[in-house]
């Protein structure tokens, strides 16, 4: 299975470049506000085409256990929650992403996996909330099962 990083171009979830290349000036950066598990707001910037996971890694944001599978749709630890208006702008979800998202703890109707969301100027100023306890639900509730 291809890592999302192995796919060339703008690393969109569709696997080919949708993002025209911008000159790399700081006025082309996209601002993202993360709300961490303590409720603190952490502001970071990324380049158009970066995924939200890229931003978390590049900016060394310290979310415990975030992005365990390194953006390959093999876990749900980069689960993020968005406000309605932002969620609508995030583009389509593939079955592959939904399959992993389905396993996320605290899944909501406006949840996505951060490794699949690519930044664009239209998302400038977006807020993404890191939900509590990123546990995959592929476990038995009865611990003795």
């Amino acid at each position, binding site marked *: 299975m291809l890592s999302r990083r192995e796919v060339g171009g703008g690393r969109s979830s569709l696997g080919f470049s949708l993002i025209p290349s911008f000159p790399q000036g700081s006025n082309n950066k996209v601002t993202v506000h993360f709300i961490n598990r303590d409720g603190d707001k952490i502001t970071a910037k990324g380049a158009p085409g970066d995924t939200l996971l890229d931003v978390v890694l590049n900016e060394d944001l310290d979310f415990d*256990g975030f992005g365990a599978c390194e953006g*390959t749709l093999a*876990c749900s630890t980069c689960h993020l929650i968005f406000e309605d208006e932002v969620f609508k702008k995030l583009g389509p979800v593939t079955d592959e992403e*939904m*399959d992993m998202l389905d396993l996320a703890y605290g899944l909501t109707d406006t949840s996505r996996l951060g490794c699949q969301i690519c930044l664009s100027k239209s998302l400038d100023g977006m807020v993404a909330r890191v939900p509590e306890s*990123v546990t*995959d639900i*592929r476990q038995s509730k009865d611990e*003795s099962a």
Partner: protein
Amino acid sequence: MSRLCGGVRFSSCTPKVCIVGSGPAGFYTAQHLLKTHQNVHVDIYERLPVPFGLVRFGVAPDHPEVKNVINTFTQTAKHSRCRFYGNVNVGKDVSVGELKQAYHAVVLSYGAEGNRSMGVPGEGLAGVYSAKDFVGWYNGHPSCREVFTLNPDLNCETAVILGQGNVALDVARVLLSPIDILKKTDITQPALEALVRSQIRRVLIVGRRGPVQVACTIKELREMVNLPGTKSEMVEADFDGVTEALKDLPRPRKRLTELLLKTALDTPGDKEQQRRHQASRTWGFRFFRSPSEVLADADGNKTVGIRLAVTRLEGSGEGARAVLTGEVEDVTCGLVISSIGYKSHPIDPSVPFDTRRAVIPNTMGRVKQATGLYCSGWLKTGPTGVIATTMNNSFDTARSLVEDMESEALDLSSVKTGSEVISALLEERGVKSVSFSDWEKIDSVEMSRGEASGKPREKILTVEEMIQVART
């Protein structure tokens, strides 16, 4: 905060913690300890010469991205306050008691090396394996070479897997995957060769309950549905009432059940018809069946079939129970794989162990009725859950441990020499540990051997050879 150490005022003694087991539980516990406590030193002891536990020996060869966590574990192992000691068998080469003397705290994270047995006659016949051993075999676990004196006998048309979790689906997928796919993975060479010769064309994945209770998750189901060269074959009647139940299901279960229904019941379009027509291998779930006996041939040695008791459901949803109806059904097969759960074993009589649940009794990772003893991973909660589950479980244990260090619930007042003492003991006993950089030699040899055959690595299959490479 300063503390009295041996009568002289020092700042707090360097806390020394050791962790038994180097799978995800061990590494994530270590990672969290090192991150949240600036002085703690962590030593990880591992029975095998190679680290990573089920990430190496459990995750299916065609799921390489799941193994990406090895990168973060490698970073942890190379942390200045972390040391890896492979080839050390805790319980045999050194006791838990000796570790407790040498360290301020001991974390047990050695997982579940056993498996639940079906408890039916014929379970010991040739042709019957636990999924743990089957998976261990295709993933090159040194102890699984001995289980199959020859490679498992794949000279039969039908294989029956008991259990419908993700491990069962991994086994089915490996049995039926086109060789062209498998040969580019890190599946072991002997397993690959056995699969090339395999006659298996049909795999049934059997569960006691119904479609709504199936324990696997959608990604794994989708992989089966999309497996090249295969088609599914299910029993329509098993799905009675399932469509009606859909509307009340939470989204994850609903999507899974919808995919199952579609696969089982939909009339295929032309393209799908053609694909099925060309498929040479079949797989299917069988529901409402529980193993009651494995059937032997006339000589009483080999498996020729399995007798399944027919069940029905009482109740619905997650809590539904399978109840025997008295009917049975015999299925012809030559390979039976029971995938009904791994199981932990006790390590040492001094460590409390709940034999019914096969876990170490604990509260938030603190072992009950013991001080300085903690547990994480499957040993703590039972053998279910994926790597991310274990990650959280381990972070919780680490949090408890750090809390105890800071609140002085854990006695840090005496200097502990940790690995100095243990290394001396091991040397006395003729045990040579394998360091992380020794593992890197093994890693490097495996990867370069794999390159020759277009695989990410060619795993070394014996402890002897691993040690030989480690010593070069």
